[in-house]
């Protein structure tokens, strides 16, 4: 599993701010630009990176595109940590099972 795109997308403070604004309220590029000290092309560039990491998704509304939070990006991050613990617990379970067998069948 590769969560590189999500970590990179969120590693930039401006993108985190944009992402948090979108999580508070779905917004257009224009609405986001009004609330930030950067240009509209800069906001669009950050939105492209957030979109490709599946942290936000755009829905056309008339002539505008409205950006909303996309659950997949965050779900990927959470699943990644979840899988790390699965790997660790698989190992624990395997060793426990091995020791249980050793107790059941003691060496002669």
């Amino acid at each position, binding site marked *: 599993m590769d969560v590189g795109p999500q970590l990179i997308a969120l590693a930039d403070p401006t993108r985190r701010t944009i992402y*948090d604004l979108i999580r508070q309220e779905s917004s257009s590029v224009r609405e986001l630009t009004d609330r930030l000290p950067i240009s509209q092309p800069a906001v669009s560039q950050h939105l492209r990176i957030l979109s490709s990491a599946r942290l936000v998704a755009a829905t056309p509304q008339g002539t505008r595109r409205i950006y909303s939070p996309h659950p997949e990006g965050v779900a990927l991050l959470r699943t990644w940590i979840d899988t790390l613990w699965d790997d660790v617990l698989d190992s*624990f379970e395997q060793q426990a099972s091995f020791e249980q067998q050793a107790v059941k069948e003691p060496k002669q």
Partner: protein
Amino acid sequence: MRLSPTVITPIHKTRTVGLEPATAFELFTTRMGSWWPLTTHSIAQEKAIGVRFEGRVGGRVVELTEDGTEHPWADVLAWDPPHRFLLAWHPSIDPDAASMLDVRFISIESGTRVEIEHHGWEEFGSAEGASLRDQYDPGWEAVLSRLEAYPEWRAS
């Protein structure tokens, strides 16, 4: 203050093993180095050779490496064998940015149910975390500082 909805909810894991709680607890903690997948889930990876789990409140969990370097993973906050232990979990990161690993061992007919809860992704709740609260906003800053704990860890 910015109100941020929950980003990463606590992670829960449960496993059942056919060992008595005392044995399961001892295997999980004192003998962690005998089963932990160190080659993939550690800081030094192939150079990691073991884990020292200091089983007492205030003890540490430390990754041992072949050149003698020790990498701290966690501090023991609660120690109640063979029922429960609680770690402030901070491999490769500032200990003040630790998340919480709460592990319980419940006696069942066939052995022991081990329950893990990994939580505290978004708060810098402790007094020790005060300096980090100034450094980071709540929410994502906190989550990311904790995700950085796993730069090399390879999930399957």
